[in-house]
């Protein structure tokens, strides 16, 4: 048993790194399509990247941007929160989140004025 457990753990390591690598690939592809303005496809890729690696802070950040672009603001906020929890103090994510909050405040101001 003493031998089996470390072996099992070892066998998991390459699988985990393979998933992380595939997650990065999905993230990169998502960025490519986002640059072409294909935000639905980009969102799908970032979500897939997160299925493969739930610790991928970049994918959470990118997913948040895609959600924001599609008008899904609640989910965008959650995704930014998760990205910052995984990478606290990341200046790029923080900058995106600040800009998101600024735009969200503008939206809320307008919504409050509705009759």
């Amino acid at each position: 048993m003493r031998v089996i457990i470390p072996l099992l753990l070892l066998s998991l390591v390459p699988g985990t790194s393979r998933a992380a690598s595939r997650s990065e690939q999905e993230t990169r592809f998502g960025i490519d399509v986002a640059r072409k303005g294909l935000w639905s496809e980009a969102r799908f890729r970032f979500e897939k990247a997160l299925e493969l690696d739930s610790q991928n802070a970049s994918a959470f950040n990118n997913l948040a941007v895609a959600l924001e672009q599609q008008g899904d603001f609640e989910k965008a906020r959650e995704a930014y929160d998760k990205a910052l929890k995984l990478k606290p103090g990341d200046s790029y994510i923080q900058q995106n989140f600040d800009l998101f909050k600024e735009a969200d405040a503008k939206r809320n101001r307008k919504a409050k004025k509705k009759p």
Partner: protein
Amino acid sequence: MPSATGRPRRSLSAVALVPLLSAACATFVEVPVETPLNSKIDVSSFRRVLIAGFVTEPGEADVDLSTETSRLIQNQLRAGSKLQVLEPDRPPLGDALDKIQQSINPSGKYSKAEREQYRLEADKVLQDGEYWRKLGEEYQSPLIVTGRLGFEEQNRSGFQSEERVIRDPSNRPRLVRGNRYLERKGFTLSADFYFLDGRSGALLHKEKFTEEVLYGDEQKASPLSSYFELMDRLLPNFLGVISPQKIRGTRVLLQ
């Protein structure tokens, strides 16, 4: 120094450095984003829009505010909304306002009290649901846009504090505080827009916008060009009331 595996420890530290370096070189891509912003009122039940004209100050004016604004808004709505823009020969509110002017003073030259009376009477029309319902019936139940407009000359010339660096006799820089007279004149455009339901005459939404432009001593601008400059600033906000807008910006995507 060799490690237990016989490999030099250097390679381990190199392995440990890889993620650090890749983190440091993390690539990012800046992308433009357009986040949607819903309109303030839902106009999906309307097929037409009528710009009924606007209440303005009585008497001579540098700019025919009601006509110019009606025309500008009609053009904007034709390009920026799905509604069919109705084009009456003359803004319909004009007739009602003419009647008020005639009843107060047919000469068109008003005293201060008469001006105030005109404002009150015009306000009554703006708030008269029955008047707007009848007008709506005449134009096949459109969304009606009307309101009150003001365009005033402004003089904000005056002394303004400033700091200058001068050199004293020994050529040393010195900060000097002082006041300087600045000539600043311009115009203010205020618009109080009413959005009315042509089926019932009910007020759907009311929104006030104010814009100001000031010019320095050397800059000269006619009232008409200033009016257009101010309307240019105001129109996107106006359109945001009845059609969805987009907030443009940039975000960073991370690899």
